[in-house]
């Protein structure tokens, strides 16, 4: 039930870890559930699955998304205005049949409040029942994670931790020793959001993490196939893409309104998402090929 009871990654029977290892280099996609409606989300998730996503994160919207940039904040607002609730979210998940395992990404208070008075277990149990494979909580650092980690362990869910550019030294060791599913490597300081290039911090982080033998996926700012290639080339096992996909959804949302009504053209959006996923997956593969060609992937052997 506590750390002692947890298996290490190498011995895991985690769907999540398996998906990354099997489909290496992996594409992990994020969209917000309920943006602009749960019905649309179903179509979008299926499109991403078709397009090659190996893991799919679904955001359960929370009113105070402090880790998100403008793009995902707006998606969350659309989803909340559409009346997205945890129960609706779980029903959607239960209804989905994707090849890629699903993870829920949400803020800690949403997990605490589900069910009776503050307790993480009802949420975790319902998540497992609905078929989710893991949970990502951007405002839950390892130090506060014991109750949720315990509940996840008990229910066979992964609890994915984020490794920031500022995560170093003893804390890094401690968190890496508890990685569940994969290490979510935050590409740069700041919030989520599509960027035009891959930051130097990404390379630094991957170098710092190279000695840990756990799956590493990089997110925050990844928006193009070329980024994916560069990141995989730099040593990652997967890339995580969110804002670039949310942008596509927003473009296809009813014009001139943030009010959440069913998308005018969910079919178009789904097609565009599928195409984007394909582009990103191709990029990731290209990065993997490059590695084989001209990079050392292994930790430097001369280091003890």
């Amino acid at each position, binding site marked *: 039930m506590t750390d002692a009871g947890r298996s290490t990654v190498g011995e895991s029977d985690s769907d999540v870890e398996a998906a990354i290892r099997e489909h290496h280099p992996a594409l992990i996609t994020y969209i917000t559930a309920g943006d602009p409606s749960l019905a649309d989300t179903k179509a979008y998730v299926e499109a991403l699955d078709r397009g090659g996503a190996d893991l799919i994160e679904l955001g359960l919207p929370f009113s105070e*998304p402090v880790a998100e940039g403008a793009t995902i904040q707006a998606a969350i*607002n659309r989803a909340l205005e559409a009346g997205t609730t945890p129960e609706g979210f779980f029903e959607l998940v239960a209804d989905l049949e994707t090849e890629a395992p699903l993870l829920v990404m949400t803020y800690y208070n949403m997990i605490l409040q589900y069910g009776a008075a503050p307790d993480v277990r009802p949420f975790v149990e319902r998540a497992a029942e609905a078929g989710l494979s893991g949970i990502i909580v951007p405002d839950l650092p390892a130090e506060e994670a014991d109750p949720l980690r315990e509940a996840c362990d008990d229910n066979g869910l992964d609890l994915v931790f984020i490794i920031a550019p500022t*995560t170093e030294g003893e804390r890094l060791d401690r968190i890496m020793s508890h990685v569940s599913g994969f290490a979510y490597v935050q590409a740069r*300081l700041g919030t989520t959001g599509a960027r035009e290039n891959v930051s130097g911090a990404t390379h630094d982080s991957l170098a710092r993490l190279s000695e840990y033998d756990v799956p590493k996926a990089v997110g925050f700012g990844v928006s193009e196939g070329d980024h994916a290639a560069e990141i995989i080339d730099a040593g990652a096992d997967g890339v995580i893409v969110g804002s670039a996909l949310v942008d596509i959804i927003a473009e296809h949302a009813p014009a001139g309104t943030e009010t959440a009504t069913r998308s005018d053209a969910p079919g178009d959006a789904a097609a565009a998402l599928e195409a984007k996923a394909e582009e990103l997956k191709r990029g990731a593969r290209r990065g993997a090929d490059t590695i084989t060609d001209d990079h050392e992937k292994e930790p430097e052997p001369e280091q003890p």
Partner: protein
Amino acid sequence: GTFGDYGGQYVPEALMPALQELEDAYERYVLENEDGFMDEFRERLRDFGGRPTPLQRADRLSERYDREIYLKREDLLHGGAHKLNNALGQVLLAKYMGKERIIAETGAGQHGTATAMAAAHLDMPCEIYMGRTDVNRQRPNVYRMRMNGADVNPVAAGSGTLKEAINETMRDWATTVERTHYVIGSVVGPHPFPKMVRDFQAVIGDETRTQIREQAGRLPDSVVACAGGGSNTMGTFHAFVPDDEVALHAVEAGGSSLEIDEDAGLAPNSATLSTGTDGVLHGAMTKLLQGTDGQIVESHSVSAGLDYAGVGPELSHLVETGRVVPATVDDEDALEGFHRLSRLEGIIPALESSHALGYLERAAGSAGETAGGQRPRDEDRGDLGDLVVVNVSGRGDKDLETVLEETEARDLEAAPDVEVFDG
């Protein structure tokens, strides 16, 4: 890092090293006075801030309520409210830590102006995040921050008020954490903020405790302070927490109603301690105004400075353990409190502080002015006792327009005739 079940550090991983660094600095400089930090802090509070602030016997309130009423005059602190105690402490600490830049959120603008003043005083670049709605309705405070050389960044998200400003400041901090210190404005946020802000504000209660003993010869029977985030509350109460014989009353904004409208996502009050439920917001486990799903609702109070859906975790703990008694005063009674102090004592209080004064009227009754001209019966004297301290956390100059509008819309007993102002 916790107070019973409350507190903690519920923040993005990227901020955790900064919180550890801050905790370390807090322990060394604040708790252990390393490099004379606390000496310098106290000296600057005195010379720049104007401490100590007086503890004043309120002659006419004492007469009205037939007991001794003392006012702690934080309205006289530089900037017009207790906010400077914390802002000056944190900006100075950031300087000791070698940080190069200050950011802060502000709602009504009081914490923003205090931080901008402190940053100017200590020569630190400063940016303030403020909701777009608040920017528009609190122009004078925006001007004051700009005059002090701070940049004011309007936040367009959501309803454009305090909650959104905090979110956006946390985003800035998550991006620039290595060289930036985030000056949180109340006893909220992740550890060590609630403890640290309390310790900077504790000067209020420390002074009060000394002053009341000098002036009244004993500790008070009760101490009354308004509570929004809770920085003036904890600052006033902290020194008295070990004194079991001193009752501590935290007065929250009852707004127009204590009911939450969950469909609209609105609480027409800010009565977190009185009506909230446990949850995590802005880095800490505490009492919150939230819907059953866990979405945070928009709070409301006639006093912008109390208008927050959370509260300091230590206050949640002290209420949970029974040490602090929460109470609510609605908009109308707060306005009466505003007018009463203005007319009877020549002190125009902040609308925040007016809630504490409104509570006084209800809990102490009026000695000579009840409807039937009767003095309140002894059994109605409530638990305030015979010697009461009320913290006047700030001055009300900033609230004049609001008070006029709200007064015109009501039939208030203590208000002057405001129609003449139209002439």
